[in-house]
């Protein structure tokens, strides 16, 4: 159930994964981008943890606290995208407690922010199949991993990775990997399935 606690659990799992894999995310980004995706998110992870220490009152303000932590600390493309996603979750959670609906709205906001759609080798290539699966109620770790893996063979046409063009083929998208962590943790706390 969507509560202040489950969100906090979800987030703490995600930030732990980000911090444990900071170097790996940087490495992935240095192959097709500018090598800072892990550092960017690690700054955000610290900020999210700090923000959740003083537990917010309700679900929307929990999303808002996370969004603000990301918006003010991450920077880069991923800061804007994840920030936009959580700001949208904040807004939508005032209307519904249906996590799938909330995720769907968040994804749409990200697409608009990034002026992009699935297939461009970005984090959206994880969001789209996972949200689709969530609608059908069949999210599994394998669905998530497959989505992450699917970015490997794509050619980047958005973000910094688009500068390397063809050369981006054969490498995972760093944002897809960090979104993979996000959904694995969401699955583990039972908010999607």
């Amino acid at each position, binding site marked *: 159930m969507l509560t202040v606690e489950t969100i906090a659990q979800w987030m703490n799992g995600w930030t732990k994964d980000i911090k444990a894999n900071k170097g790996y995310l940087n490495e992935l980004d240095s192959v097709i981008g500018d*090598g*800072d995706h892990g*550092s960017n998110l690690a700054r955000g992870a610290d900020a999210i943890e700090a923000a959740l220490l003083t537990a917010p009152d309700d679900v929307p303000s929990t999303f808002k606290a996370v969004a603000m932590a990301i918006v*003010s600390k991450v920077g*880069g493309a991923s800061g*804007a995208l994840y*920030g*936009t996603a959580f700001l949208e979750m904040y807004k939508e959670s005032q209307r519904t407690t249906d996590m799938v609906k909330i995720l769907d709205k968040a994804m749409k906001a990200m697409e608009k922010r990034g002026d992009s759609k699935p297939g461009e080798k970005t984090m959206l290539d994880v969001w789209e199949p996972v949200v689709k699966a969530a609608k059908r109620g069949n999210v599994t770790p394998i669905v998530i991993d497959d989505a992450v893996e699917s970015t490997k063979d794509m050619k980047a046409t958005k973000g910094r990775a*688009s500068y390397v063009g063809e050369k981006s083929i054969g490498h995972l998208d760093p944002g897809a990997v960090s979104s993979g962590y996000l959904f694995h943790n969401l699955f583990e706390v039972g908010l999607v399935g």
Partner: protein
Amino acid sequence: MKKIMNDATQIVTEMVDGMALSYPEYVKRLDDLLVLVRSQEESMTNKVGLITGGGTGHEPASAGYIGEGMLSAVVCGQIFSSPTPDQILAAIQTADHGKGVFMIIMNYSGDIMNFDMAREMAVMDDIDVRFIVVDDDIAVEDSTYTQGRRGVAGTVLMEKILGAAADSGASLSEIEALAKQVLPNLKTIGVALSAATVPEVGKPGFTLAEDEVEYGVGIHSEPGYRREEMQPSAKLAEELLARLNDEFNFTPEDHYAVLVNGMGATPLMEQFVFMRDVLNQLADFGVQADFTKVGNFMTSLDMAGVSLTLLKLREDQWLKQLNYPVNTIAMVRK
């Protein structure tokens, strides 16, 4: 990696403080933010605010161009990393003097998204915000299959022209129109002798052999379009001018502004030798160079190399705006 710093994670904050401490007559730091704003507030009264920002590591860009006749405020991101929307919003708020704010954004997806978020927030504050996305780097193919061309050293000329217009009292719509007119006439191409080392990363973004150069490299060690044996300065100039000619199609009596920009570790001596070759070759094309500048304007940390920017002067006004009085840390003109 050997760098004069205390802590790689604090280098941007300490640099911002260093700028404010060294040049209080030009810039002051906004609260605890990584935002530098113009000290001479009176000079902004009743004028459109002009802001820019992005990752740092390009000094003197962009905070070195804050001052009368140029920028109102600059948002400093982490090194090579877009700043966050809350900081951009603060810059917008401080730059607004009732006439709205114009944002000069360099074409990187992170910057675009973060400036866009800040603009949305500012609109809620009833601040009129417009922007231009500078994409002068012709090294990257401009197609729907990429993020488009990058913003590089030509941005400084854009800032100079718009700064002059803002200082002369142009409205936000006029500035927007001017920016859109100038943009397609602004092109840059660079060549790297070595890559930059980001302090937190600790090693160069790529490695070139002792006798190699790479054409078309970006200002964040993005890969270029060709790597080859080091050439004499005149040959480098020839290659870069050939690429620019593909874009402009030089015609005798064309008028241009010419900017040779050092990437950070390349001595001025080499930049002047290179500019000599550029100007001689432009003269061979019969092209007029009405405005010429040489120096470190938009660097990439300790990268070695130069970029060459041409701005085709379609309007006499643009030359006047380039020569318009300006008073900033890195550019002063009476």
